[in-house]
């Protein structure tokens, strides 16, 4: 039975010996290499926006809901419950966040969003943990319910408000932002257009200009999740529920309670992400604004191999592609085609070196196609930019399959007293 999100008969989990822990120097080296590559692409194509502080700032803003949804997925799956309902919980978060912000103020909105998402998580928990419903079926049901509920609630609450209606809320009060000193200097540096230095300035500038306080909270949740899950007793017990629930139960861990907690927390994370989306990224609740970001968050979690660090990186990538559509980035996406072609070519060559001929050749083939597309066009149409994040998700998932290692009991319904 396809229990979790990775069918382990088709892609068996990576053997333990193969995993190489990514140490900090390696990660930094990788980031530096990436920056150099992007900078080169910018110089070649002249698309200055790909590393501008505006883009990076938007990328950060859009990475947060994806990352929070992914964190939610991580908490839930580490306890063994697949939470497809993240999209629905995200939607609930957007609505409750908007409502809370509109009625009581921005921070109350965040809190309301968390509660709204957690409620969605509670429903999922009841269905999967207590009643043993298939995790994905329950998640799909939660998504349907979430979409329906927000519609109904909007009809009740937003209809008589200025600018509001069944499908959207009125404009929301903003959350305070801050800007670090030195941002102005970074701006000037960015404007010079110098190789690598300006790009670095742009990236740093985007990260420190007009950053919402809620963003800081959200980013902090990544290391906090790591500490909680890997360095505390509670975290060990929760992870044991996802790896070997019978073992945990035999040692006195209340597996049901852990799963409940994990899934509710998961919903809460998604809810916060939704509130962030409504309040910070867009300043309004609109039906359909989540646009699949819950699922993209799950993809970020898979990309991160169910660890917070990798998840954050994945969210960053997806957030970046997401930001391009906000800034009418036809030109930027076009420039990134070159980057994509180069990266794919690199992966293709690496696969060939490691004797994976089929993957190597097909990746090189796709790289060639992308390069041709880049050369034959000037820009990418808006409609395509719109689904850039989704296409990136597909690409990333397709390439990442080999080294995945989901929690061993992920997605399997668990009954007390045995498997």
């Amino acid at each position: 039975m396809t229990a979790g999100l990775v069918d382990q008969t088709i892609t068996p989990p990576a053997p333990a010996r193969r995993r190489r822990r990514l140490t900090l120097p390696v990660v930094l080296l990788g980031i530096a290499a990436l920056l150099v590559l992007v900078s080169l692409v910018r110089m070649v194509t002249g698309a200055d926006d790909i590393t501008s502080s505006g883009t990076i700032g938007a990328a950060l803003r859009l990475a947060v809901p994806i990352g929070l949804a992914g964190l939610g997925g991580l908490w839930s799956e580490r306890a063994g419950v697949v939470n497809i309902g993240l999209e629905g919980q995200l939607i609930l978060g957007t609505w409750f966040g908007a409502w809370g912000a509109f009625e009581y103020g921005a921070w109350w909105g965040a809190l309301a969003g968390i509660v709204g998402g957690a409620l969605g998580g509670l429903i999922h928990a009841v269905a999967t943990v207590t009643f043993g419903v298939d995790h994905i079926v329950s998640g799909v049901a939660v998504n349907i319910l979430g979409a329906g509920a927000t519609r109904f609630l909007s009809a009740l609450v937003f209809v008589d408000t200025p600018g509001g209606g069944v499908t959207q809320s009125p404009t929301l009060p903003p959350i305070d932002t801050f800007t670090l000193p030195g941002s102005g200097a970074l701006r000037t540096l960015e404007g010079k257009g110098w190789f690598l230095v300006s790009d670095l300035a742009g990236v740093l500038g985007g990260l420190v200009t007009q950053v919402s306080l809620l963003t800081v909270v959200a980013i902090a949740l990544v290391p906090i999740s790591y500490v909680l899950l890997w360095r505390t007793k509670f975290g060990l017990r929760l992870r044991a529920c996802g790896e070997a629930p019978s073992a945990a139960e035999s040692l006195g861990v209340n597996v049901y309670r852990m799963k409940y907690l994990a899934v509710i927390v998961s919903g809460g994370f998604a809810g916060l992400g939704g509130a962030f989306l409504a309040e910070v990224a867009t300043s309004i609740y609109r039906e359909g604004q989540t646009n699949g970001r819950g699922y993209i968050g799950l993809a970020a979690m898979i990309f991160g191999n169910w660890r917070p660090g990798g998840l954050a990186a994945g969210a960053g990538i997806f957030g970046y592609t997401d930001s391009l559509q906000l800034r009418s980035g036809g030109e930027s996406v076009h420039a990134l085609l070159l980057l994509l072609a180069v990266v794919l070519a690199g992966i293709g060559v690496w696969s060939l070196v490691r004797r994976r001929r089929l993957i190597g050749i097909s990746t090189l083939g796709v790289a060639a196609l992308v390069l041709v597309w880049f050369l034959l066009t000037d820009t990418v149409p808006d409609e395509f930019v719109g689904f850039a994040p989704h296409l990136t998700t597909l690409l990333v998932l397709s390439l990442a399959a080999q080294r995945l290692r989901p929690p061993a009991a992920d997605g399997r319904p668990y009954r007390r007293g045995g498997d």
Partner: protein
Amino acid sequence: MKRVDWQRTVLVLAAPTLAVVVAVLLSSIVLVVSGNSPLRTFESMLDFGIDPDSVIQILNKSTTYYLSALAVAIGFRMNLFNIGVDGQYRIAAFFAAVVGGWLALPGPLLIVVVILVAVAVGAFWAGIAAVLKVTRGVSEVISTIMLNVIGAGIVAYLIDPSRLGVLIGSQQVSTEPMPESAYLPGIPLGEGEVFGFILIALACGIGYWLLLGRTRFGFDLKATGLSETAAVASGVDVKRMILRAMLLSGGVAGLVGLPLLLGESHSYGQDFPAGFGFAGIAIALLGRNHPVGIAIGALLWSFLEQSSQILDLEGVPKEIVTIMQGITVLSVVIAYELVRRFSLAQQQRRVGAELRAAARSDEGAVP
């Protein structure tokens, strides 16, 4: 043997009945809390719903929903979650409409071509997800959803009048309308007409039942869904099954837009309705992947939607219906699980009782 069947029938019906009761109860609570009268709401819905005009609308909607749910159910039977029916039907209907408006063929032949194109495009779009799953292990849950958005983007790009679309009037953008000879005739019912495509939908239902219940392919598909490891040991090529099942599911999904396309709109416009795919998922869950169950579910779903229209006039937010739909889906999946466990425990009890009886009669014989 007869006793088993009777008990089984009761159990099979118990779950959806339980679910509907729970859904009605919970929705009533929601109504009361939001200041409306449940009784009046349900009453007016019922009155409006059985009005002859409504019945025609309900049947027409059901045709679409039935096909959508069938497509989803094919996947569900194999534990594949084809959440991409929404994208598949839209991209399929789009290309089918383009071909329909463009080819100059006699009417009935054109209809056949349109149907074939829709099936092919739908199957292809689902096939992408299938290939990714089979070769790279990408979860079809995520990939089909991503493909939904990508498909919608491609359609939005191509429907522009400078490419494959045309401008109708001054504002409407759609594909070239199909000639009148390619209008699928409706079936008269009372004062109005029901989509002729309903016959094709019924044929699909029969085909589904035959294929999944009576053929070797269907057995392999069910076996893979019940236990992939056992199916593999029995000789099933799982990767090939996944491909076939997803292609079949996508092909049927391609048909979802056709009742509307061939029977009413005759072109694919920017306002071509979306969301049939998600309703299909809910209805497949309601109908437990059974062709008759899905039919009843489709009718129920359409009834709820149709009768919700009257609620605006009564001052009740018609979105209560979406809540009812959501609650129904959730209660149904829970109810099914409960009934399944109960039925299993009961079977074990019965087997144990029979074995004890046999052992007792045995003991008499052994010295």
